[in-house]
């Protein structure tokens, strides 16, 4: 079993109005050193197959087909360190 984490974020250059709003709210709370905020999504996915290489390929397919909209989003896959 593999516990993977997929992070989906907006591509650089794509306007993120939600990130901007959060940025404004953090400033309103007095966090004056916040330069920029980009909002994204995290998916924790448990795979039954224990082979990490096969897992990465499966996760990439999941990202391309559903988890990310590659018109506007990038994705990153994190697998647990090999033992």
């Amino acid at each position, binding site marked *: 079993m593999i516990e993977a984490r997929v992070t989906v974020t907006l591509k650089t250059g*794509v*306007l993120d*109005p*939600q990130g901007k*709003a959060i940025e404004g709210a953090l400033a309103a709370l007095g966090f004056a050193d916040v330069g920029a905020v980009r909002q994204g999504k995290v998916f924790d996915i448990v795979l039954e197959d224990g082979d990490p290489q096969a897992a990465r390929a499966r996760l990439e397919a999941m990202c391309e*087909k*559903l*988890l990310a*909209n590659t*018109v*506007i989003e990038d994705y990153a896959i994190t697998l647990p360190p090999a033992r």
Partner: protein
Amino acid sequence: MKTAVVLLPGLNRDRDMIAALTKIAGTPPLTVWQTETEIPDVDLIVIPGGFSYGDYLRCGAIAARMPVMRAVAAHAARGTLVMGVCNGFQILLEAGLLPGALMRNASLKFVCRKVRLAVTNANTAFTRGYRPGQVIDCPVAHHDGNYFADAETLARLEGQGQVVFRYAEGTNPNGSLNDIAGIVSDRGNVLGLMPHPENLIEPAHGGSDGRALFEGVLGRAA
């Protein structure tokens, strides 16, 4: 003229769309549930607006992966007319039947109001009921209508006349690039638009500027 309306859980403009099609085509559309793998021969398939699957993941993302959308794609490839309104537009983009994406409104607010739409290409099956450049009223109601495409895609859409509706007179309600409100596929048989023409087809609606879209498209096979 035979029409079909795709039904998915969470859509809420399906009744309005069915009423408009029935009123203007003279016969009610077939309704096709999301689990269907085939759609009978029709001239026009419509995906109405709403909040399919509660907008989970991204607007239209889950709906676009349902079996019925493979049937819609097969029809689109054969040249059947396909129209997606609001959430239907989002679903067509997520299904890859139109290019680009619809993002959260730049204002972050849900907008529900009348806008002005310019018909920037009246030479499509969907817009031939209008004069080129005609500016019409149309209601919008959405939270994610902010059209985005990369520069290359945008240039192609503009160059090939695929932008058919544009928000006019400073009424862009969502920050859409180039004021884009509606686009067609490169073959011109798939239309996606954020505004709701089905909600402006008779005087009781406060106007009937949306009617010509249905009359134009439904007259095609007559």
